[in-house]
């Protein structure tokens, strides 16, 4: 089985978000970049397929040279080979088209991407990619088993979960649940040394239309001061929620 894990290079979850250039660009100053958490759960599940079912695992990202530390981390965790599409990711459709080209050329059986990146939250790359290539697709995937050409996946739905049967070739939009938080791997020294010798192919983007563009950014309005209620005066809290906030 040949697996491609799609990685997005995103600000660490603890990052404070600021904008620059007249609020037209994300300010990367002082921001630590990491593998998108939803992608990292998928990468870890791919490592399981590699170790238990002999899968080959490649990783791909669409980004400039500055994303290479993130790709190297994935190689250090155990991916066999990496591909970087040398382009600034414009929007989800653009990224999906670039990745579709890689999947087509690499003849992958399974593509694992995160359900969404935690920066622009588009949540569309895996689904567009699957549809462009006529592959099956399961979103918000929290468990995945492959047996020959058959796949059993569980997806999170509002208020529960649904088990789905399908076949390869398959694209999933993954998230926590594919593996547990405690299963995530920190690269060890040997992995980091080996990653240096692994192939990182850089390819140029195929031409693509830009269908959407972020023209301006805003930060949320500052929050007003909290109204404190004495722990011995719960009646007052109920009064405020009923008469002032009108939510009960």
């Amino acid at each position: 089985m040949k697996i491609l894990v799609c990685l997005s290079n995103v600000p660490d979850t603890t990052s404070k978000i600021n904008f620059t250039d007249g609020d037209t660009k994300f300010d990367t100053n002082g921001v630590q970049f990491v593998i998108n958490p939803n992608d990292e759960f998928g990468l870890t599940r791919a490592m399981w397929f590699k170790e238990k079912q002999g899968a080959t695992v490649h990783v791909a990202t669409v980004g400039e040279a500055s994303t290479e530390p993130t790709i190297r981390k994935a190689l250090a965790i155990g991916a066999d080979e990496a591909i970087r599409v040398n382009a600034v990711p414009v929007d989800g459709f653009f990224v999906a088209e670039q990745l579709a080209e890689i999947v087509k050329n690499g003849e992958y059986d399974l593509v694992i991407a995160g359900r969404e990146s935690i920066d622009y939250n588009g949540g569309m790359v895996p689904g567009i990619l699957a549809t462009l290539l006529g592959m099956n697709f399961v979103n918000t995937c929290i468990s995945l088993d492959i047996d020959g050409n058959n796949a059993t996946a569980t997806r999170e739905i509002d208020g529960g979960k649904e088990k789905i049967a399908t076949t390869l070739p398959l694209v999933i939009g993954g998230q926590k649940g594919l593996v547990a938080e405690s299963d995530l791997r920190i690269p060890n020294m040997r992995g980091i040394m080996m990653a240096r010798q692994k192939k990182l192919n850089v390819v140029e983007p195929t031409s693509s239309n830009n269908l959407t563009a972020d023209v301006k950014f805003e930060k949320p309005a500052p929050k007003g001061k909290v109204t404190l209620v004495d722990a011995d005066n719960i009646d007052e809290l109920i009064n405020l929620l009923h008469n002032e906030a009108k939510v009960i």
Partner: protein
Amino acid sequence: MSVLVYTESENGKFKKNAHEVASYAYEVAKQMGTTATAISINASDAAGLGDFGISKVLNVSNDQLKTFNAKAFANVIGQAAEKESAKVIILSSSADTKFLAPILTAQLKAGYVPNVVSAPESTSPFKVKRTVFSNKGYAITEISSEIKIVGVSNNAFGSTENKTTAAVENFDPSLGDDSFTTKSIEIDKVVGKATIADADIVVSGGRGLKGPENWGMIEELAEVLGAATACSKPVSDLGWRPHGEHVGQTGKPVASNLYIAIGISGAIQHLAGVSSSKVKVVINTDPEAPFFKAADYGVVGDAFEVVPKLIEKLKEFKAQNA
């Protein structure tokens, strides 16, 4: 050239978000000087959408579509868009709709912008405001493709009544076997209880509750309020509560009217995930907990004393206001 909106139903009944997206579609149609058409699948009261400004409903009755299937549903919406020559399609943010949206996007080569929080800033050029960076910011995004798809955030625009008469027309899409290459084999869903996605009130517990054995009072408080229960990331990582309850940046987003955080300090990732909730109440022993800076109302106190008192007082309140 009408604005097309997919109004989601469950067991024949429209979901709460169906009225919200219908109201949104009406607003967009008004801005563009046209009307709003809904596509509805196996709903029993299609004409009722007229209350929310829908002029026409394409009503699909098809047993093959009794269970949600993303590709098949995307095909239906795509065919409806073609029939109506719709250039703008409005979708909700439910798990099912976010599943079908990218499929539809690829089929129609559309520009798709999800997580939109308000009516378009303008429709020519077409600009919408959406959340980015997991609610830590907003972007004004321009869609330049011929067909535009807008995903409306839960509970952001709200439902507004606009009395219109909806003409209901049967719609019979053509669906081949290639629409059904993924098969639902088991659905495990809580019934009769509010879910985090559509609850008006969410009651959430954190590590301050000390252990899973103490969740009885969280569930009781939720029951009194008709609320959904949720938890912080450490609580789900420790296995005290199921993963499906984890709210925050890498868990589920919350956009309820009221969010009550109990024993949750308020890590930046958690605050981002719940920031779309309209009113936030925090109960915590530590007055320095970051959540107090993000909350509307706060009680500094021990959850084990405050919550039982709150339950008791709310029961009295509910009895008086019943």
